[in-house]
């Protein structure tokens, strides 16, 4: 029918959901997310005077914070090692490349987007570099306490600064994933792996088209 939206006409015979994130990708996301939350919680207890006083047991909290950091690095390495490495490499290439539509999208000109929009690509790059910087500054804080030659006056400033920016970005991330009506369906992609076809059409059209067989072909 002519009044129906375009995607209904094109994809009416297709299944309702499409797979957006692989098991490896989802595992990476949730390993990173849960480690971040434990690190943030224990870090804030170490950092905010009122929480430090309330909770006490600083040496224990310090151990929890440090060991969680190690567990996080180990878990990420394990997921990469045991997961779908070819898929990860493909995803990295996707995240790396900004085509013309991505560049226009960043200038707030609405353009059809791939599996990741340009903002998500930037968020991924930022998250990866912050992970690296958190790890380096955290290990320096730990080792500098034991060896003066690894003590830099700015290490703690970097670690704290990363925390402030990360919390800011996390709030935005949670808003888009849990509250903002038009984007929150994306959460399903990160929990079950699949998203609704009409939603993908709306938000990630180029991806949907590229994974689709030509709409009019007989299958």
């Amino acid at each position, binding site marked *: 029918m002519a009044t129906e939206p375009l995607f209904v006409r094109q994809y009416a015979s297709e299944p309702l959901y499409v797979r957006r994130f692989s098991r490896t990708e989802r595992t990476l996301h949730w390993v990173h997310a849960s480690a971040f939350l434990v690190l943030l919680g224990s870090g804030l207890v170490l950092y905010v005077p009122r929480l430090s006083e309330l909770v006490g047991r600083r040496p224990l909290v310090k151990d929890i914070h440090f060991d969680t950091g190690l567990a996080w690095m180990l878990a990420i390495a394990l997921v990469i090692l045991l997961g779908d490495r070819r898929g990860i490499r493909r995803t990295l290439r996707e995240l790396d490349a900004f085509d013309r539509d991505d560049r226009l999208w960043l200038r707030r000109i609405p353009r059809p987007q791939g599996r990741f929009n340009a903002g998500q690509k930037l968020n991924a790059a930022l998250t990866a570099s912050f992970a690296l910087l958190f790890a380096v500054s955290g290990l320096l804080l730990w080792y500098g306490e034991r060896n003066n030659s690894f003590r830099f006056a700015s*290490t*703690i400033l970097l670690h704290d600064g990363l925390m402030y920016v990360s919390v800011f970005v996390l709030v935005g991330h949670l808003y888009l994933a849990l509250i903002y009506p038009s984007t929150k369906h994306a959460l399903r992609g990160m929990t079950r792996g699949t998203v609704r076809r009409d939603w993908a059409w709306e938000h990630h059209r180029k991806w949907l088209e590229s994974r689709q067989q030509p709409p009019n072909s007989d299958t």
Partner: protein
Amino acid sequence: MSAPADEPKLYGRRAFLGVSAVGLSSLFWGKPVWDGVSGALQPIRNALPASLVPSGWRIYTVAATMPKFEPASWRLRIEGLVDNPHTLTYAELRKLPRAEQVSNFHCVTGWSVKNVHWAGVRFRDLLAAARPRLDGTVLGFVSAEKPYFDTLTLKQAELHDAMLAYEMNGKPLAREHGAPARVVIPEMYGYKNVKWVERIVVLDQVQPGYWEERGYDVDAWVGRSNGY
């Protein structure tokens, strides 16, 4: 082939490498730059409600819980190589000659708090009644937070701005800052500024303190020790 304008640009790796490079290099320029910028931010800080502005303090402790100050039962014991070992109550401590100062506080881990207003007793006045003997050249500070301990030479303790402080920024010392009394020696890093002092032992030689047993320098001069 697509036209050059349609070639994907590898912004992802550029963003990753750029942010990582800025972050890593900030290990070498972060603090001086932040010190410059944070002065300029002071008007904004003053305009915000005090509860929203980070005080700059971090509360470092080594035991499970912080000591709790009970004014009625608290005592400060002064002993060791002295002619008159004795014990002060909180009221007696507050009756000793009062000194005030505004000084900066530097932690060896890199954070600082500027312009802290302290009130307390200079060590010379604090020790006068105990009468240290000639061989008593070092003060050992025993914290109620076990097993925290550190020493200062008498000479260091008699610097013009060293004191046993009982007030901070116009209020009795808060629990997390070492209530009711802590060492303040701005020329040295925070770990020499023992909190929750409950006993001062006059000694004839320096002993390694809590952090010094873990590798920190005994003489913790700000900017001239611990690898700086």
